[in-house]
């Protein structure tokens, strides 16, 4: 057997393997680049990843994760072979990681292949590149838009502007651009004078990401109020995008720059006793898994080891079950969707597990399908229909669920849920705030 994550320990340990004189032969010269060979070698072609891929399910032309990862890696050993353009159809949902029984780091292989494709194959003046660069840097766009939120909302909501976006940029006109909040989360944070609770031993640093800062500050506020209720000192360091949309578009230089800034602002807090909390499961995924997989920057390993999703943190560090047992909320009924990125972190069932016993609440999981939007994927004009086909199962289950309010941790999943059903969508932290604060 083989396992990329835990290569066999070939160093003899005294007393244990000391009598075994086995010395491994160095077949390949040491390389300073990322070595993905074990990933390719560990694949035994069972196709479990392909069966789990939501894009392959609706797109007959997409060769699937097995090709994008191990097979493409092997093909590229030939000198004249370049990365196939089908890599751009991977939505980076990372479900293949969870499906592989042999430890092949599929999403890491996809991210590196996509980065290489964009660097070497893509025309930097093409509409696709410009569009993808804009989508990948949503944080920068949102920063500008938020300066005059009402004006921006009016412009972006204008159907003529939407048509132009589609024709000129290839951003679908089918979707309503999300409204910018009139006050960003950070503006609110500064206005209230920062932390209201100080503590020496219960400290967290909040990674709010772009969306709960510019679009849904109520999620960020809920995070702050819930953690302060439990006696945590919350700080909100300066930060850039987690990188998720950049990985998905192969913009690894942009992602690396943002990761460097985040490392600078967060890593130093860890020795002071702070853990890092994210409310978006893609942000926490990026900080935990993609950062150390893709970049060699001081502090990223530390950040990875100290990052938690908000509710996960409370489940581990507080007695959330008891806290919720003693409280109740107004009658409400939710259709919960677990984001793909929550799955690989083991967080896909926690909301239902916690809230199903909360007085006043009924909550139902709408199944394990992907919502289909996958961040920027569903915003692309040529991907829109596929995105909606992937989401069809979820829409169907939502409509059959008792609840008429949706719930999810992921901002773009929530866009898709709203787009497909017209439901209002809440973040679990908002319900936690209602129950506990």
């Amino acid at each position, binding site marked *: *057997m083989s396992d990329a994550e*835990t290569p066999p320990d070939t160093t003899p340990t005294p007393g244990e393997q000391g009598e075994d004189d086995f010395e491994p032969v160095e077949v390949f010269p040491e390389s300073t680049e990322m070595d993905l060979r074990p990933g390719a070698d560990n694949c035994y072609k069972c*196709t479990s990843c392909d*069966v789990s891929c939501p894009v392959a399910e609706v797109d007959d032309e997409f*060769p699937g994760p097995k090709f994008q990862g191990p097979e493409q890696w092997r093909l590229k050993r030939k000198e004249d072979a370049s990365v196939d353009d089908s890599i751009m159809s991977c939505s980076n949902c990372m479900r293949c990681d969870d499906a592989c029984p042999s430890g092949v780091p599929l999403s890491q292989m996809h991210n590196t292949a996509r980065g290489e494709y964009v660097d070497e194959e893509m025309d930097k003046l093409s509409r696709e590149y410009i569009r993808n660069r804009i989508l990948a840097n949503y944080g920068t766009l949102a920063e500008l838009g938020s300066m005059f939120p009402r004006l921006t909302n009016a412009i972006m909501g204008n159907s003529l502007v939407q048509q132009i976006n589609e024709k000129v940029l290839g951003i679908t006109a089918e979707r309503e651009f999300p409204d910018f909040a009139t006050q960003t989360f950070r503006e609110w944070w500064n206005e209230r004078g920062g932390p209201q609770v100080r503590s020496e031993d219960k400290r967290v640093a909040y990674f709010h990401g772009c969306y709960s800062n510019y679009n849904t500050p109520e999620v960020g506020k809920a995070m702050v109020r819930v953690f302060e209720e439990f006696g945590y000192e919350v700080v909100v360091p300066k930060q850039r995008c987690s990188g998720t949309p950049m990985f998905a578009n192969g913009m690894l230089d942009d992602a690396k720059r943002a990761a460097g800034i985040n490392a600078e602002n967060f890593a130093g807090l860890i020795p002071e006793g702070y853990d890092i909390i994210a409310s978006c499961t893609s942000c926490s995924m990026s900080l935990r898994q993609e950062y150390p997989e893709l970049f060699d920057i001081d502090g990223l390993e530390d950040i990875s080891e100290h990052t938690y999703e908000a509710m996960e943190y409370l489940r*581990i560090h507080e007695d959330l079950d008891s806290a919720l047992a003693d409280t109740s909320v107004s009658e409400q009924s939710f259709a919960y969707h677990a984001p793909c990125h929550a799955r690989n972190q083991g967080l896909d*069932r926690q909301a239902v597990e916690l809230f199903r016993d909360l007085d006043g609440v009924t909550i139902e999981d709408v199944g394990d399908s992907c919502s289909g939007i996958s961040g920027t994927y569903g915003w692309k004009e040529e991907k829109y229909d596929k995105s909606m086909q992937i989401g069809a199962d979820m829409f169907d289950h939502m409509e059959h669920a008792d609840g008429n309010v949706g719930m999810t941790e992921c901002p773009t999943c929530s866009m898709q849920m709203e787009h497909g059903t017209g439901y209002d969508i809440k973040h679990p932290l908002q319900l936690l705030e209602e129950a506990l604060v």
Partner: protein
Amino acid sequence: MAITDDVLVIGGGIAACTAALSAAETGAQVRLLAHKKSTLRQASGLVDVLGYAGDDGPLANPYDGLDELPEGHPYRIVGEDGIRDGLRLFDEAVGDAYRGGHTDDNALVATYGGTMKPTARYPESVASGLVSASGDMLLVGFESLTDFDAPVAADHLEAAGVPFSVRGVSLPFPKTFRADAKLTRFAKALDRDESVESGTVRSALADAVADELDGETRVGFPAMLGDDHDTEVRDELADRLGVPVFEVPTGPPSLLGLKLEDMLFDALDEAGVRISSGNPAVDFEADGDRIETVLVDQKSRMTPYEADQIVLATGGLVGKGLDSDRAHVTEPVFGCHVPHPEDRYDWSEPEAFGDHEFARFGVVPDDELRPTDADGESHFENLRAAGGVVGGAHVAREKSASGVSLATGAVAGRLAGEDATQ
């Protein structure tokens, strides 16, 4: 603080699911801790109990072979009662979707290699293709699905001396997909009855097969006859052909395995079992001979899970519940003792299908399924083991993998639940 339950079952396969269901029956709060998507999707979906024991086999009745098994075999520990309890839990979980529960006897199911597997429970879609039932058989394969070579499988069955005639044909599938299209794509085309030039996929397939039929009274396909609408697909084909239609279980991606996974996980949900999946259990904290906390590697950071009782059901060498290097075989989570010959050249036999020693590697359970150390003492008073991680059975030769998982899962889960709720 830690995430706390009464019983923690580590694993995601058939043994872990059974242990969790069994523990839940005692009233305990149970959590299943699975690393990745269940390995059931790699499995055929057939549930065997015992097909071969000692020099006997294939066995008509699995219970007749129990006395032939060596000392230390998991079946010798849990006994016939344990096996029956495992099958009861399985039958309750899958309901009408499986057959075979009407008798103790084994059925013989044709595999996609054309061999016969003694099996205790089999999916409903397999039922009319039993080799232990009579009726001439036509096997249909598809040129683009190379895993199942129908003419070869048919020749194998004929050569094995089945008491009916078997013929195999390879046909083009009515709809063309890219060359490396997966089995699931074919299943979906049948599910949706996609249109093709001469009508729809189902009718075109039935027409093509009808041309080949030559008096056979049943027709078998690789297990790809629909996913969400499988019964409908099978019924329509049978109706159009005028003879029963059945599926031959396949290797991965195994739709029958995927469907079994769904059924078992639905049963867990129904039983109130909590599930955490996506990350491996890698370490633990103990106080003397009691495990207090199991540590899960949640992307390079440890998340603690606490429980009164723990069931280890992480699988064998393939499932990664056992690990090995050039000198040692280990159980990586709790470091339980795994006996093995010192010289690694004694671990295996020269013949590919020989009586390999490594196949029996695993932890050594006491009479309550607690893994023991080299002196025969249990490692921890609140740790039990079930399924492939338990040593002493050569499940591939015996055709006993599912049964060992069901039986040890049922017993380990019940004992853990009883201890936790006492």
